[in-house]
């Protein structure tokens, strides 16, 4: 296991560095600079001075190595769009709303999805099975901003039950959390159902039934445990995908989270923030996949690490 983890860590480092180079180059290849905006025109001398003070007049490779040197010391620079704080401080301020809404969304969605999937698998071809499939298909195919739009239209505009936007009151959290919960719920309903059905058809379940074990114990002690394996693998990546905030959900529900910065960092050529966001999410995905593999191996001793390359 240790050599496997070391090998994976090396591979993660390689991936991370490749992503950083590609993104850095792409970012600087976008025409225009951070001080070319029309709302605050500056003269050429001032702009040159500003660029020089931020080190943007140096050759690209120098800028890249300087920035990456900082990254390895957990210094992501100062965001151009709000120079009063560091990127790390900005993330610490803007992330909590996304983390709360997205995290709650994933947790609620995943639990509901698992329940739905279990029920669907146990009552195959019943109305609840069809309902689960319908939910799973809808949640996985309809873009999240369309779901958000439908939620706003129905619950805020027509019925007027819930506020469409805002962050302060808890009842304004309901709609964004619902929007966030759709994808995890759909994913889990689908995975749980197919994993449960796989296990339910195994011979050992028939043996357990023949030995007279109660159906409840068969399901909860044996089937669910075996079905949990594929369910574990999707959780972490999904959590990261959701809890880093969605540009769409946050812009539609006016949540002051991380999402808005994805767009503004690109539009305002805010290089330090843009790099920080992409590198941070990339790193979290890498770690999530590694942890998932380790968890998978611990739950399933049949997996061996000798030279397997998935």
């Amino acid at each position: 296991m240790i050599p496997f983890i070391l090998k994976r860590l090396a591979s993660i480092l390689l991936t991370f560095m490749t992503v950083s180079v590609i993104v850095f180059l792409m970012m600087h290849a976008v025409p225009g600079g951070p001080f070319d905006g029309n709302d605050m025109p500056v003269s050429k001398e001032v702009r040159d001075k500003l660029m020089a003070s931020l080190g943007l007049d140096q050759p690209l490779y120098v800028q890249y190595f300087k920035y990456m040197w900082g990254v390895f010391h957990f210094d992501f620079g100062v965001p151009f769009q709000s120079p009063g704080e560091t990127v790390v401080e900005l993330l610490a301020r803007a992330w909590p709303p996304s983390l709360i809404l997205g995290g709650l969304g994933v947790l609620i969605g995943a639990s509901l999805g698992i329940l739905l999937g279990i029920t669907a698998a146990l009552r195959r071809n019943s109305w609840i099975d069809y309902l689960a499939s319908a939910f799973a298909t809808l949640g996985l195919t309809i873009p999240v901003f369309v779901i958000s739009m439908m939620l706003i239209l129905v619950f805020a505009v027509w019925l007027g039950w819930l506020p469409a936007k805002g962050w302060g009151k808890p009842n304004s959290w309901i709609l964004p959390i619902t929007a966030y919960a759709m994808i995890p719920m759909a994913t889990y309903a689908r995975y749980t159902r197919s994993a449960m059905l796989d296990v339910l058809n195994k011979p050992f379940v028939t043996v357990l039934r023949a030995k007279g074990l109660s159906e409840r114990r068969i399901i909860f002690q044996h089937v669910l445990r075996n079905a949990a394996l594929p369910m574990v693998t999707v959780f972490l990546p999904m959590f990261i995908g959701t809890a880093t905030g969605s540009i769409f959900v946050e812009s539609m529900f006016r949540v002051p989270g991380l999402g808005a910065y994805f767009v503004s960092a690109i539009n305002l050529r805010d290089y330090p923030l843009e790099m920080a966001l992409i590198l941070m999410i990339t790193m979290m995905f890498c770690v999530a996949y590694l942890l998932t593999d380790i968890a998978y191996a611990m739950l399933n001793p049949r997996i061996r690490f000798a030279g397997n390359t998935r």
Partner: protein
Amino acid sequence: MTLATTPYRQRSPLYFAWRRFTANKAAVLSGLVLLVLILMAIAAPLISKTGYEDQAYLTQALAFPSSEFWFGVDDLGRDFFTRIVYGARVSLSIGFTAALFSVVIGVPLGAVAGYYGGRADWAVMRVIELFSVVPSLLAAMLLGALTGGGFLTIILIAALFGWVQVCLLVRAQVKSVREKEFVRAAQALGATPWYIIRRHLIANAVSPIIVGFVLAIPLAMMLEASLSFLGIGVAPPTPSWGQMINVGMNFMYFYWHMAVFPTAALAITVLATTLFGDGLRDALDPTMKGR
């Protein structure tokens, strides 16, 4: 000819696939919906009264749906039904072309990785790993900003993120077929690797390729809608549903039709394509069902 009169008739695999497909009601219905959408997109100039950017009804701007304007009039005095129908053109053509490009990139890479294994496989898998860890929408937005958006670039961006799935499907199929006896036989007879890949491996991977193609369509359509929603996709006045949803958001409290129709159009199209693709997958390869 006694052989022809025997009661036993040999059926082709395609026949069984067709039977499995038609037994799936949701897939057949989606196929029909998709067909109607495609016909509407092709016949757009025939079924709409004006061009998609004609501000013919400025005095009736934001009018609600009526017998004259089925989907109402938008804020700039354009017939909204016309806009939606032309939006289908944009969405479907981007979806199909991007899926085609995904296949063009994904199939050779998947075949090479699956057949040669070793270093080629390692290289392809590292590239795929890159795509799995980078937040795709962020990268797509960056690319959109880099290229300035536009019809063709959106297609290329969607293909860039769509080929991975096709590649993995083809790679898995090629890997399993590579070990079969007939491939060994072809190798023994001196067939070149290129010939084997083209003639045997890709031919045996046709089902996953078709499935990968169809399932790449909704992904591309969703990416286009997302980018257009954010204002870096297809530029106005070319009608795109994502763009219309974005505009509709500002009007939805008073002029619901501005938000409802593009939302519904996008949802129905993506849903129909996905269900059609799922049905096709189950029909062509029953062992993959439910995955």
